[in-house]
């Protein structure tokens, strides 16, 4: 029983600790033989291992859709077939002509690009519709939020602002150069400090997050 736990919990934690400490050590005291040779190897490994995460995700996606086809879920299974056909088509083109091939690029540029950009664009339209219904100055803070939004639109984003009143540009840039700069720093400090502390807890094994989930 002990080896089972060591294999599933202690050894992976040890790997995380050793890899993390080596990389931090190489930054603090550069030139140490143990870390200066191992860090280039570790970053090489990370690049390769990261590459395998993508085929794994694609495989889970394909298995997921094969189940849908087998169960003939109404209203979804023929779309899944169409999707798998397109994946196969891209793989065939990729292996025969290579990813630089004319048809491969055109397939992507004229069949994937339009939908991807339109979907991102529609997020903006949802945000527009929601801002009409939700963005109300119920509290002084909400009023500050709306005024800042108007100022940045007219001063920095849309050229129409400087046509209505040329003063919008300098005013918006003043706030962006000093106040919004400091608030962006506040958000970076807040999320960075928490991320560093979470990272340290994970390295030291206090936050054995992926260990607690039993298999």
């Amino acid at each position: 029983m002990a080896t089972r736990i060591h294999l599933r919990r202690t050894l992976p934690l040890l790997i995380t600790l050793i890899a993390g400490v080596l990389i931090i050590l190489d930054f603090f005291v550069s030139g140490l033989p143990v870390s200066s040779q191992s860090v280039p190897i570790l970053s090489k490994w990370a690049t390769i291992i990261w590459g395998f995460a993508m085929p794994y995700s694609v495989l889970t996606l394909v298995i997921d859709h094969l189940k849908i086809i087998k169960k003939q879920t109404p209203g979804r299974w023929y779309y899944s077939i169409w999707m798998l056909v397109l994946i196969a088509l891209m793989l065939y083109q990729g292996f025969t002509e290579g990813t630089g091939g004319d048809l491969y690029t055109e397939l992507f540029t004229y069949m994937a690009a339009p939908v991807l950009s339109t979907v991102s664009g529609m997020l903006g339209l949802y945000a527009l519709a929601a801002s009409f219904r939700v963005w109300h100055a119920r509290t002084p803070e909400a009023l500050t939020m709306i005024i800042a939004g108007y100022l940045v639109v007219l001063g920095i984003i849309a050229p129409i602002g400087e046509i209505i009143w040329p003063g919008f540009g300098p005013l918006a840039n003043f706030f962006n150069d000093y106040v919004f700069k400091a608030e962006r720093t506040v958000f970076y400090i807040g999320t960075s400090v928490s991320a560093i502390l979470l990272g340290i807890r994970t390295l030291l094994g206090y936050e054995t997050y992926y260990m607690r989930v039993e298999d």
Partner: protein
Amino acid sequence: MTQFLPYLQAISAVLTIGTLSFLYGENPYYRWAEYTVIGIATGNWLMMAINAIQNAALGSLLAGEYHVIIALILGVLYFSRFWGMPWLYRYPIATLTGIGLGLMIRGQPGVVIKNIVGVMWPMTADVSGIGAVLGALSLILGLSYFTYTKEHKGFIGGMAKTGRYFIMAFIGQRFVGEVSVYITVLIGRLSELVNYLLGRGI
């Protein structure tokens, strides 16, 4: 230029309108466009990943650095779920987590400290002087809002409540900034569609 180009350009216009039709409501035309992009994007994604692994590993193997084989084995362990030993996937994750956290822990404090130094400007007697004071003040007040172990009462409460105004102003400008990003993407796409429909060529 392949012989399929004119058909593909027509399909791209049809797909754009199909995606926009979702504004009116969920319909099969939209679902077809959605699964088209998932299929093509996933196929491209898989191809690029396979090329990247070859590109990164081949050179080292030819140059005799056989430690790369360990990385390839660790990568294959991702798929251990499919041959019944799901806990093996923890080894590639442990390696990536250790390396990722190590890089973040060692580099992030420097970014934080440089950002703080970036707020310290001399108080000259012009607009930038006022701005410098306003900047330092809004950083101090804003950061005091994101503290959790003390109730926001008394002096700290006052700092946090004023800081909240600065934070809400920042969030307002960021919301409009994000909306403008999505809209510029939509404008880019619609201008290509308009140019195609008016025959101005994409």
